[in-house]
């Protein structure tokens, strides 16, 4: 089983990386580009077992250490 986690800065938080990437894409001539947000993607290999238990474990891990709730939001899938 694998957990695939996406962590992004909260909308309210300044994202200078995102702004820079957005500017660069526009500069390079890519059209129709809106806002860009740069975050993290984590893959965690899990021992095979109960997907529901795994979901709880990952949720707790995200909340406690993998993300900082002051500045980040997270979402994940277990496959």
């Amino acid at each position, binding site marked *: 089983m694998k957990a695939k986690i996406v962590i992004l800065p909260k909308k309210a938080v300044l994202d*200078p990386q995102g702004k820079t990437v957005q500017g660069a894409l526009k500069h390079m001539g890519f059209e129709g580009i809106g806002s860009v947000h740069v975050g993290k993607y984590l893959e965690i290999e899990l021992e095979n077992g109960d997907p529901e238990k795994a979901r709880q474990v990952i949720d707790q891990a995200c909340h406690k*250490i993998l993300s*900082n709730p002051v500045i980040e939001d997270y979402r994940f899938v277990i496959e």
Partner: protein
Amino acid sequence: MNFAVLQFPGSNCDQDVVHVLKNVLGHSARLLWHKENSLGDADAVIVPGGFSYGDYLRTGAIARFSPVMAAVTEFAAKGGLVLGICNGFQILCEAGLLPGALIRNRSLQFRCENVYLKTLTRNSPFTRSVPEDKLIRIPVAHGEGCYFADAATISGLKANSQILWQYVNAEGQATEMANPNGSIENIAGVCNRARNVAGLMPHPERASESILGGVDGRLIFQSILEK
């Protein structure tokens, strides 16, 4: 006074803080390895700068779970004095001992330079020795020093005079040019509601000897030492 200076894997400024406390200010200071469970007879704890755990995941995110941090949390809850410098500030925010968080500098580059700070209140153990109206000149050196907190938190900080230092220019104005990292309201350092825990991004231990270019940093340590 006895100081405990925490040492995590990757701390870089620990020896600098010990040097200033011991050799410049003449007090007892020792390094406390992150795996220790007790602060011993420490009267104050300094969480120094550096790149604890390589800044992996987020700066300070892993260090806050070190065994020693449980002792620091307990110490702080009982009113013990805790000062976080740079990475130390980041660790205290991650640990929830201070409000807000530090994110990447707006310029996306590491910045090492002297800055001017305005001390917004003398009502704290970290600022009481700073003379009225004196701007202090202290170096910053960080890639992730942009202070962020939501609007409600910022209002609360202001209402309770918890913003201790602001980045200003040589004339004392908190302008955008004076801000090295994009921090909201040019915030350079804050304290908790109980006023016994504080954090700041600039490095006072690097401005405590004239051979290094300035001694304004001593005022912060002297504030702690003043009873």
